[in-house]
């Protein structure tokens, strides 16, 4: 699934496109976007996919599972190789068929403001708290865009993969059966692309069920929340600031090794706040604000790096007070800390 998808030629694409949107906003950068990526390109990708109804999750700038399936559905619908990679042809096609108001989306992203489905609805309307489902979008084409909220017009999959000339029709059908449920369909859409506007969605009085919103997000390793990472960064910073980077990773790894060890509590906070376990907890240094290095070290450790080689104890031989710890079999010394198990 990870093969590059640079197969379809651009010219074929342009030729088959019935209409393109006149105003083209800034398109993607050169990179092939793949799952796990973050950043502006992902924001743009999600916004554009949402615009044409393939993505109903939050626009958050992180290429997660939801985005991955959306991309695959899009690729399937247009007969591209289904590999979940966003290459040149896919980007070009999105650029042609969708609108992207970079400034608006980014502003919303910065402010963490909820707004309704990103689509062809005029922005003034979208800014309202409730509102309109993006117009000419939706669901007619693929089986289940993002599988979300029952919005998909899965009944018309026969249009899948047809040349775009027909996809306009497909969308119309989709809307008839799809999530707009026949409300407010007669309102025209001034800004929308011609092929997408026929009978859709401007302002719909009731709140729709598609509370799509834009909110910034970050990648977090499996099984850990950003807040866990924060607590661990605090501990690492309190315990090992001034130590070499690898030494900080090792301290973070000890916390994780303890979580996996039956002798110790099995949560990050349980391990860290275990009475008398860490000096930084005892003397309050854990409440200092950690720096970026400590955070990076924690991420490295969570992602599997373990310079301590499985240690569950460490101490500073110069300052250690309790004698019994010297009796533990040492593994290695990094910076000032001796790691042992």
């Amino acid at each position, binding site marked *: *699934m*990870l093969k590059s998808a640079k197969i379809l030629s651009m010219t074929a694409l342009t030729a088959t496109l019935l209409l393109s949107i006149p105003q083209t906003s800034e398109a993607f*950068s*050169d*990179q*092939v*976007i*793949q799952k*796990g*990526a973050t950043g502006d390109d992902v924001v743009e990708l999600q916004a554009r996919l949402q615009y044409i109804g393939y993505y109903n999750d939050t626009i958050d700038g*992180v290429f*997660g*599972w*939801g985005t991955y*399936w959306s991309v695959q559905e899009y690729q399937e619908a247009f007969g591209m190789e289904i590999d979940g990679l966003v290459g040149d042809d896919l980007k070009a096609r999105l650029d042609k068929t969708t609108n992207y108001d970079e400034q608006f989306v980014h502003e919303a992203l910065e402010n*963490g403001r909820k707004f309704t489905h990103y689509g062809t609805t005029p922005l003034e309307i979208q800014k309202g708290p409730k509102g309109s489902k993006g117009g000419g979008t939706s669901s007619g084409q693929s089986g*289940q865009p*993002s*599988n*979300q*909220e029952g919005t998909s017009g899965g009944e018309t999959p026969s249009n899948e993969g047809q040349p775009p000339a027909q996809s306009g029709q497909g969308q119309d059908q989709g809307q008839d059966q799809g999530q707009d449920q026949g409300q407010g369909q007669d309102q025209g859409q001034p800004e929308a692309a011609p092929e997408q506007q026929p009978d859709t969605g401007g302002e719909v009085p009731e709140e729709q069920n598609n509370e799509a919103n834009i*909110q*910034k*997000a*970050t*990648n*977090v*390793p*499996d099984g850990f*929340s950003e*807040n866990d990472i924060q607590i661990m960064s605090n501990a690492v910073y309190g315990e090992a600031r001034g130590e*070499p*980077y*690898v030494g900080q*990773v090792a301290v973070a790894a000890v916390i994780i090794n303890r979580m996996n060890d*039956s*002798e110790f509590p099995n949560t990050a906070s*349980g391990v860290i706040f*275990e*009475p*008398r376990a860490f000096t930084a907890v005892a003397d309050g240094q854990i409440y200092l604000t950690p720096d970026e290095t400590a955070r*990076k070290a924690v*991420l*490295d450790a969570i*992602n*599997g*790096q*373990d*310079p301590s*080689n*499985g240690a569950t104890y460490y101490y500073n031989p110069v300052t250690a*007070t309790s*004698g019994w710890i010297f009796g*533990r*079999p*040492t*593994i*290695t*010394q990094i910076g000032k800390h001796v790691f*042992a198990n």
Partner: protein
Amino acid sequence: MFRAITIAVLSVALLGTGIFAYQTHQEKEALAISHENNYQRAFHQLSYHMDQLEDELGASLATNGASQFSGSLSEVWRISSLAHNEMGELPLGMIPAKETDQYLANVAEFSYETAVRDRNEEPLTNEEYDKLENFYSQAKEIKHDLRTVQAQALNNDFRWSDVERDLMSDQNPGEGTMVSSFKSIDQKAKGFSENNWNDDAGFSLDVNKRLAKAVKDKEKLSEEEIIKKAKAFLDLPNSVDAKAEKLGEGMPYKGYQVVIEDSDGERNYMIDMTERGGLPVWALQSRDITEPKIGLNDASERAKEFLEDKGITDVQLVDSKQYDTIGTFQFVPVKDDVRLYPDALIVEIALDDGDLVGFKGANYFANHRERHDLSPALTLDDALDELHPNLKSREEHLAIIENQNGDEVLTYEIFATMNGDTYRIYLNADTGFEEEVKRMQEAEPVYDVDVV
């Protein structure tokens, strides 16, 4: 007159200081008491739960019906977890209470495994029943001792804060104190935790031990050769400075930690190598990484090239994540279209210049070997029939994973969606048993407190 005023002012000041000192003292006292109360609560709950644990273990010995049995076993599981937790709240961090912890963990593990399985089909074996009996008699003893300590503590007006202070100042608490009582409980528990089943498996869960076994017959290299190999692995010229130090005896295998300084002083590598075979266990580069210039996809190709360059071929990228300026990639070897998850490798690439910043190969070197049973008994369609009907399968692979018992099993790895959530399901490819079901974590929103 002047004197009188001075006296008046001074006595007011004295009085004020006195009041202030008194208040501070009061506050400190209150804090100390609430601190102590937390310890007391954890301690008394611990002995209460040990009581309960004994009761429930006894009950599960006596019950016969499958459903009733399940009830008391899951109670055992719950209570042992609670007790384990309470151990963690006591200031025992400096005295070894490890055996008692281990005992509780063993009970929890055993009761969980037996409580969740279908005992109509798989009833408790005689061996397991013996084990349960064993746990019961051990619980009886631990409980008895703990109750004694508790009575002592209550009678002698014992304070945990005192223990804490003694431990901090490294005074050896003498005979007859709480600490020594706890130590003797722990000594007994040691006898209990030893007769355990984890070590009879012959296949250690500890990756270091596995690695030790894997390199046992390889050629022993000298320090110079190790350093040379380390530099070659990191694609560094032979001229850079490097130091090697032996790993301590806490490791099951002999190895070196090599520190390499690049001549410009900006880069700094650390890498652990095994003495036999000179295998890179892990490597990290520490330096400042600037603005990302290459995409994640690009970086993943480079990561793959790096591995292939080092002779690790036939790997597949299974996970990639971007953390600001670093791309983290997980690769697994693939044999006959089967993903070998126990042999996973981690490669981290800096997104500014595409350079390697992290590598972890311990699992690969410890576990990678020829595996023979790679053909499933069930077809994919059979396996998909076992899925919950609401799940829509999106992606399927064959994969070897380590299941909860630590055994390697051949499974179908299925990524499926339901209600907008993505799930990863491992179905045993021979029995259709759900080895693991996991809801995949989505990116986490930034909970920014400043946002209005």
